[in-house]
């Protein structure tokens, strides 16, 4: 499975655009981290299920239901999918049954965590916002226009 497939899936489950995700510089490292723990086969199964069950649906409601049922709700794929979300959000791979180790993907992963960006803050100890920035209200970034990854829309150049 290609890096693009991994990033498209990640975009939909994290709620960030592929552009945002690639901008962290961590995509390849995270893909390799996941494959390193569950194997290429394990990752391919997840991404194929997503492609097969979800990507063809254009109705957002149906798409959400199907993603929840076939991917997140799947006893084998769900824990893996949730771990990928957590990885993007805080740089940590959390131990799973059979793969008990909890670790940070790399020292650079933590400063790129989406968790803090999502709430208008900075990861403590990184990406300092500047003296006095804390005195004003938080600037919480707007959500993308659509939850559907742009690379999966029929006409990627449109909109």
């Amino acid at each position, binding site marked *: 499975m290609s890096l693009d497939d991994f990033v498209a899936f990640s975009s939909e489950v994290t709620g960030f655009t592929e552009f945002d995700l690639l901008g962290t510089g961590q995509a390849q490292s995270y893909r390799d981290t996941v494959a390193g723990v569950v194997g290429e086969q394990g990752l391919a199964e997840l991404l194929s299920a997503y492609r097969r069950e979800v990507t063809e649906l254009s109705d957002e409601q149906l798409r959400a239901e199907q993603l929840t049922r076939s991917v997140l709700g799947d006893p084998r794929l769900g824990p893996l999918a949730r771990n990928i979300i957590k990885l993007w959000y805080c740089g940590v791979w959390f131990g799973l049954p059979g793969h008990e180790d909890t670790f940070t993907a790399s020292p650079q*992963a933590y400063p790129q965590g989406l968790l803090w960006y999502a709430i*208008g803050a900075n990861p403590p100890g990184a990406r300092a916002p500047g003296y006095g920035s804390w005195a004003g209200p*938080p600037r919480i970034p707007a959500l993308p226009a659509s939850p559907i990854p742009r690379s999966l829309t029929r006409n990627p150049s449109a909109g």
Partner: protein
Amino acid sequence: MIFPEGASARTSPAAVAGRVYDVVIVGAGIAGAVIADRLSREGRSVLVLEAAPAEDLTIKGYEAYLTDFYAAASKDNQSPYPVIEPVPMPRSTDARPIRPGGPNTNGYLVQNGPHSTDTTYTRVLGGTTMHWEGKILRMLPQDFELAEQRGQGPKWPLGYADLEPFYREAEREIGVSADIEDQRYLGLTYPPNYVFPMRGLPPSYLDQMVARGVDGTRVELDGEEFSLKVRPFPQGRNGIPNPAYDAGRGFVPVGAVSTSQVDEGERCQGNNNCVPLCPVQAKYHAGKTLAKALDRNVDLLAQSVAYQVHTDPETGRVTQIEYRHYHDPNSAEYQTGFARGRTYVLATNAIENARLMLASGLQSRSDLVGRNLMDHAYLLTWALLPEIAGTMRGTNCTSGIVDLRGGRFRRDQASFSIDIHNDGWGWPTGAPVSDLVRIVDQNTYGFDLRRSLVDQVSRQLLFAHMIEVLAEPENRVTVDPRYRDRLGNMRPVISFRVPDYTMRGAAFARRLSRQLFERLGAQDHTSYDPSEYGYVEFEGEGYRILGGNHLAGTHIMGTSPGTSVVDDNQRSWEHENLYLVGGGSMPTIGTANTTVTATALCLRTARHLLHELRHQDQPVALATH
């Protein structure tokens, strides 16, 4: 701040063996650093023994701490600092509830209980100022008179007025940011026209929101009425220099320390990571003072763990300090060395000072070495505010409520100050990562995940009540030859019970926070789990009391050898040329983080030492007939 190149390796055990220094200092934290600095200014020869490895302080070395912090999956308050075999240190992750039948020997501290503490200190060059938060309150004048005014705690041999000039000197050394008009309350006084070196850090958006709900709240306690107000704390980190400082001469902030000039750290950037490590060194750490001292030929001998203080059995005078010098931080192999001086200063911290004295067989006749161990008791309460408060931004804590630091009620119950934590529920719950995990595990993803995080993290409010603990002889540090570290040093054995006086303060704090949450329209989420360490039952209710890393009291100062270990100069009553310095000398700790008071005491001791050494230098006048 330039660190003199090569200064960390200027001497060796062999070179040290051939010298008698004016002063041998054990410990390169803030206490040892300021004494070394002041003595070397006047040309005194000084040796600093440091247990931890010490290379020249450089940006590269500092960033290795930062990288380790980034890489750590568990970001506890010691996570940036390497754990090495010869110099173990306490870590909050080692704390466990203590089961009947034996102590918890899991971590470096052997814990006898009944209370299990997660208190820590950092055994690296610069000591615990590497990981401290840098909130820097002076003690109140009434904190020095608690015994006289309220009949509580041992007496101080000096008062606020005696220490005031040294508080100012400490505030210069550390570089304190605060606006003087915010720091006049409960009798805190300053000379006319005094201002802090730098202007106060702006209160956070969260502070401002809390202030709108809390300011003007009336509280009655022991017949006195208090009006609460959210107030900024003085900070040991760089802000905007105040041009009015020092009679208009201003102040130049001290930035990052390295062997070459680095333009970093001259102002706080809001990293929200004061604990465990300020990434830019805007927060003071003792390396800033050490760099100055080492530039004046102070000798630093690192990787040398003090093992025993040797004394002359006749005179009680210290003759030498035996230390264990290791070559390899990954091995427990060592060679024994000896350091000799005219005077000796133990500046390791309250637990380690007592540990070293007791391991050397130097219990005082008063049996007070190691007793009266104190540390602030922290009670946390947490809630969700009705609106987005922008939590998780700023320094760890910019403001709090200090109106209950003093009052008549102290005859019955502990005073406390309340910190408003800008890092949300991080301390008790592991937020925001724990929130992320919980929300994702509910199969919430994508946009809903982002919305939930904003909703559940950016509204978090945490009050940390820093509650006074009084000296109790049974709260103590001892040693036991059965418990040793890999270098053969006896480990500290801690016995601690949270005094009822403190718990009455905690119970009041819990009730008050319910009232304040209600005023703020905040939903209380506080809960204390009986199966976790730190759980205390008091008068039918459960609480969790956490450690404050404000260690004090194991060699308290006083006016006589029967009731204290050191005099008002921190000089041992029984060992004329030995000084036990730092928080351990404090008979009470009030509701002030201990560092600025400990530093002021050390600056006062430095002045005394200079006087003593000059006096000793004078030739003896022989009587003429």
